[in-house]
């Protein structure tokens, strides 16, 4: 980065064919990603999915095994971290303990020999409302204050691209909300490009313009948080990672211009054609638990509703606003239903015989090839190989950070 000058505005980021291998395992299989300038982009995934590695590659703290990284059209793959117009808010904050808050914030400005580093650092601290603590040492601040200092230390440099590595992970709920709002405000004021890495789907949903869901070193689906990701998940992983889903697999037995009919263990289930990614052969369809209704008696057949049952309630658990029922339906498996805790409506106990139904327009069809031999419902993604890979990556990052 040339000294003495700020980036004019946020720059777009492009990752082309990125692959990253550590000795013994692959963190990122193959990644193509393009983030337009000025957007708030979230990489969402479980721990060990390769999202932090992606961030470190962009920051220049790791070198990709293959592929190239372009920031604002310029290839920065060969550049070291200190040469890239990128700043990071680290998960651990990494505030220098031997410097005051003010010196921490002015650090990047001094390195680039930008005029009036102290004045600009004060300005950045005012933005995060911490200017009155400028003379303190970082360890004298609370976790939330340290987080804001870390943010100020990054944005004071007006980087073309700001990387956020689960920066809100250590905060309590109220402070999180406050910081989320603050981040969003700053992004709109300063106009930077944000790349936010998180495992918290709610955080990603509320803050990002675009979300990429990552799993096992690949991007499973990318799109706006609503409706694309939540309403129309493409894969079983996305359907279950962003909230829970009831998934069924069966052959398409009929289709019209508006909907397809799928045979699920003898039940005919309709899915709107524009909400299904595939229209023929074996398909996997799903519905969100909160979109399902629970009935004590067999509901009247209707053209716009799919019915399943009878089944038996095997578990009931209350959670504040709703009640979660687990219903075992013969030949189909266990389904999850969320019911609002209202005074009226069917309330079932464990062992009761119940029927389930949902509006046809609430169903969705996945793009995934159904896994041969698997049951009608998708198993959770906890096979030994993926657990082993996740363990391994967390160990490697821990070792590197230690």
């Amino acid at each position, binding site marked *: *980065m040339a000294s003495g000058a700020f980036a004019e505005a946020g720059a777009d980021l492009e990752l082309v064919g990125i692959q990253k291998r550590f000795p013994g395992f692959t963190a990122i299989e193959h990644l193509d990603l393009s983030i337009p300038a000025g957007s708030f982009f979230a990489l969402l995934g479980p721990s060990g999915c390769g999202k932090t590695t992606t961030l470190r590659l962009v*920051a*220049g*703290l790791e070198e990709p095994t293959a592929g190239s990284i372009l920031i604002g059209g310029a290839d920065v793959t060969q550049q*070291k*971290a*200190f040469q890239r117009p*990128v*700043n*990071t808010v*680290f998960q*651990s904050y*990494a*505030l*220098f*303990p*031997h410097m005051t808050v003010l010196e921490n914030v002015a*650090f*990047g400005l001094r*390195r*680039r020999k930008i005029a009036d580093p102290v004045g600009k650092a004060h300005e950045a601290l005012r933005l995060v409302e911490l200017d009155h603590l400028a003379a303190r*040492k970082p*360890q004298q601040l609370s976790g939330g204050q340290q987080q804001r200092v870390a943010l100020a*230390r990054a944005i004071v*440099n007006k980087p073309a691209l700001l990387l956020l590595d689960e920066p809100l992970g250590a905060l309590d709920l109220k402070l999180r909300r406050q910081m989320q709002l603050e981040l969003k405000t700053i992004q709109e004021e300063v106009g930077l490009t944000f790349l936010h890495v998180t495992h918290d789907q709610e955080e990603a949903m509320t803050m990002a313009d675009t979300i990429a869901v990552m799993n096992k070193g690949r991007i499973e689906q990318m799109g706006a948080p609503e409706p694309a990701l939540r309403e129309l998940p493409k894969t079983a992983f996305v359907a279950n990672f962003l909230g829970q889903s009831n998934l069924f697999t069966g052959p398409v037995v009929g289709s019209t211009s508006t909907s397809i009919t799928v045979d699920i263990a003898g039940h005919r289930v309709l899915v709107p054609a524009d909400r299904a990614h595939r229209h023929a052969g074996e398909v996997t369809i799903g519905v969100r638990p909160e979109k399902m209704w629970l009935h004590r008696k067999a509901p009247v057949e209707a053209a716009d509703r799919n019915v399943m049952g009878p089944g038996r309630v095997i578990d009931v658990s209350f959670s504040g606003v709703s009640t979660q029922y687990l219903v075992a339906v013969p030949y189909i498996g266990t389904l999850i239903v969320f019911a609002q805790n209202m005074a009226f409506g069917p309330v079932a106990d464990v062992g009761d015989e119940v029927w389930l139904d949902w509006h046809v327009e609430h169903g969705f069809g996945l793009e995934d090839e159904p896994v041969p031999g698997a049951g009608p419902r998708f198993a959770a993604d906890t096979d030994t190989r993926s657990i082993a890979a996740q363990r391994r990556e967390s160990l490697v990052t821990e*070792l*590197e*950070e*230690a």
Partner: protein
Amino acid sequence: MAFAAFSSTTAQADPAPRRRSRVALLLLLPGILYLVLFFLTPLVSLLITSFQAPAEFGDIGQYTYAFNWQNYVDVVTDYWPHIVRSFVFALAATVLALLFSYPLAYFIGVTARRWPLLQSLMLVLVIAPFFISFLLRTLAWKQLLSDESFVVTSLKAVSLLAPDAHLTGTPIAVIFGLTYNFIPFMTLPLYTTLERLDLRYLEAASDLYAHPFEVFRKVTIPLSMPGIVAGTLLTFIPAAGDYVNASRDFLGGPDSQMIGNVIEANFLVLLNYPAAAALSIILMSVILVIVGIYVKRAGTEELL
């Protein structure tokens, strides 16, 4: 840490109940007794000796109690070159030991973190010299640096040393010996701080546009300050009072005598106890003042 006693901040303990403080006092008693017996008493005795005057009709080595402060003036006028030389040699040895030890400690504590076996092996190698007597090792260096040795003949062959020059008996040999003998005392405290160094700070610095040398100067060095302070103190203090390396029996010569040698000679050869005691007191006070200023200036309180 060894220098916690010099720290200006004293921990504010909650006033404990009386009964418990009595138990604490009881437990401290053996330590206090030990210090009174083996530290305070000799110190007072040394102070008294340093003011003694020669007995009027006595033999050599017989002194009477007096308040003869002239002893201090005499030893300073007689031995000021030795005092200055001691601190110059100790300083040179400390700086050299730091220059050698820092990369070594960094390698063991940071680079070798991924290979714990290598780390332990290198630590053992740092400590290994302690298994052989300090005197024997220094004597071995006398052989290695003697006029017929490979080192001297090679240096002469490439004209780095004049044909009639020596290494033993010169200040170079003494500083070399001091550096060699105190390197482990520098390396180990440096290693303990660098071993705990959080590399995420270094990553953060390079993310904030600091190139590798700036990362080292602005982040690595300040964060390893506790180790640097401890190591330099553990090297400087004993090196300033050392009398083995500079001794004529080892690596020193007539022009490289240090204050330790003078004290030794006055105590054991010349039997001038007041002079030796006065020199000891001077050495101790000067070291205390230097260390006090150094620790204050280093400002490592919040890193401890």
